[in-house]
């Protein structure tokens, strides 16, 4: 089954590579992956869709948490959520088919964002199903180019727990000698 996971990570160079490299190395099947800024400066938010059984998803989450720059991971599959995807589709058209395409796009509450003599660019935002079904319909006219963002998602209702910055307090000590300090756990999940 498909799971929607959200991961927050420090906005460091190469962090996307760290995460995607780990997923590839562990042979996890990722359907889609989207990264962008979160509400916290310096923290990026990654949404991805994993296809697998409970055990595999459990491993994905645990291995993600082991990546040093990843600060938090959540599986929001079973929570009420708003999940959206944006697609831009360049579809071939002629003077005969143009109006028909416009009608279809309107029904889907999409937008025509660019028009030329023999094609136009359609923008659609919605659930993956809606995007899929519009693409199905438009494919009869001939799709020459297409780009999709992959799923982005937010949990509905309750405001999400803000990312709390926490610090491991740790004093320098000689390498390998026993520490008198209590081991304090850092934040994260």
């Amino acid at each position, binding site marked *: 089954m498909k799971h929607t996971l959200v991961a927050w990570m420090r906005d460091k160079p190469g962090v996307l*590579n760290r995460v995607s490299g780990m997923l590839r190395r562990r042979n996890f099947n990722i359907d889609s992956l989207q990264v962008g800024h979160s509400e916290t400066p310096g923290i990026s938010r990654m949404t991805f869709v994993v296809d697998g059984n409970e055990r595999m998803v459990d*491993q994905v989450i*645990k291995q993600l*948490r082991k990546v*040093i720059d990843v*600060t*938090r991971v959540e599986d929001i599959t079973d929570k009420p959520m708003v999940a959206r995807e944006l697609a831009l589709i360049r579809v071939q058209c002629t003077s005969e088919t143009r109006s028909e395409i416009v009608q279809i796009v309107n029904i889907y509450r999409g937008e025509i964002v660019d028009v030329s003599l023999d094609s136009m660019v359609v923008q659609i935002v919605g659930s993956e199903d809606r995007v899929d079904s519009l693409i199905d319909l438009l494919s009869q006219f001939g799709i020459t180019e297409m780009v999709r963002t992959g799923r982005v998602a937010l949990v509905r209702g309750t405001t999400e727990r803000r990312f709390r910055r926490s610090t491991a307090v740790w004093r320098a000590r*000689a390498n390998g000698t026993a520490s008198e300090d209590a081991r304090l756990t850092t934040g*994260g999940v």
Partner: protein
Amino acid sequence: MTGAQMVWEALVREGVNVIFGHPGGAILPTYDALAPYEESGKIHHVLVRHEQCAAHMADGYARATGRVGVCIATSGPGATNLVTGLATAQMDSIPIVAITGQVPSNLLGTDAFQESDVVGVTQPVCKHNYLVTDIHELPTILKEAFYIAREGRPGPVLIDICKDVQTATGLFRYDMEVDLPGFEPWPSVDAEALAQAAELINRAERPLILAGHGVQLAGVSRELMELVEKAEIPVVTTLLGAGNIPESHPLSLGMGGMHGEAFANRAVQACDVLIAMGMRFDDRITGRLDRFAKQAKIIHFELDRAEVGKNVVPDVAVIGDLAETLPALLPKIEARRHQVWIQEINEWRADSQATDILNYEVDELIPPYVIRQLWHCTRDARPIIVTDVGQHQMWESQYYIHEHSGQLITSGGLGTMGFALPAAIGAQMADRNRLVWAVAGDGGFQMTLQELAVLKQEKNLPVKIAIINNGFLGMVRQWQQLFYQKRYVGTPVVSPDFVKLAEAYDIPAVSVRKPQDVVPALERALATPGPFLIDFRVKEEVNVYPMVAPGAAVDDLIRRPKPAIVQGYSGVEPHW
């Protein structure tokens, strides 16, 4: 101060006094800044002959001391040569910090001379890694690197420092706090899970402990012994868990898994509560997973959450540092005896011992005999045995009786041939007065034999070397014999005369061909100050038994073919 000085200042503050490395263009400013530290005796640099061995030496040093080992290399080929050593450390959870030079930051990405994407190359084989392009980040990164390498489940961390950062100047402080949100090295212990585990153990009729490397890393051999004796629970170890409890103890069943003793594997399959401690259910110990310990409730004591449920789904998972969880568990455990269970295991043990190769009357030199004599000659000196990978490694774990944790240093997870000599040098650099034996096969030894030069260079570093020389890549040959109809493709090895080779490096050496010469040679090695090499020309086609075929269940063993003449052979046929 300069970036180069910062590197050494950080190392001094971390208590590092030995590093292993090889200089080159991009790391030269850092080497240049090392001079005053070498002169004042604060840091000693060991020059290696190949960077892979710098990582292995840092690894051996870390395993022998429990401290962070440090290796250093230049950019490009120097750094890429480290990869095998880093992967070895990553698989076996060994804390090492690797420092590499990198081309100046304005040349990054231009395919400059000796440039390689080291951070990209080493990412999959490191716990974490850094590219430093800004002098102001360097102190923090150095501190974070040691912190990450050492805390929680240890692992290798690499710092790639651009040449211009090494020469730039900045403010150095090292008393800052490490700020790593999301890095949770020491999870807090769940009392509920601990109580459940204790209840399962107290109710068990046929309990068994599977003790792994984590016991050694957490330093809880003594607590484990307390638990074992209080509740009379037999212990099977993994390869890296050898010596977690003294193997001469009646409750020690030695190693389990692919080349574990038959009685140990039978115990694993027959137990009703399996207590896994600091181990990760590697395929080499579990065999076929869907037939592994089917009757058992499984308790998994583990620091790394990701290991729980990765291969085996436990009934109870106790997450946390064994140094915390095991002492917290002890008072909850009732003193018990499991006489019926222990007796059953001992019957299986007798059956296994009956077919032991050492009962054969052979006048040829066989490897298990060599290892057993090595144990006889060195047992009182509490040596560290460092093995390479292959048949001799398995024989060592079967026939050397490890009496304390950390006595065996070997590449378990990655199985890196060529590991023995450099790792033994690293372990010996930690303590020159300790007896360190490197045991290698003729194949693996030739992968890193250039490091023999280091023994001389480090003022006669007293590493003793035993080569189990059977003219084959033995373990691969064994697989070819058993699974590929004896088509020995690519496994016969032509070796140099190792005695002459040692002489070329000015190391005393002797060759042994007969069983009666083994002990005199070992005694001569022990009596000789400095390094010594023994080339054991053993019988060629000897196999490691028992063996679990890959993909078979652990009680589905290939046993040693019935011997022709056996002293004291009971005539009991194996049950499978």
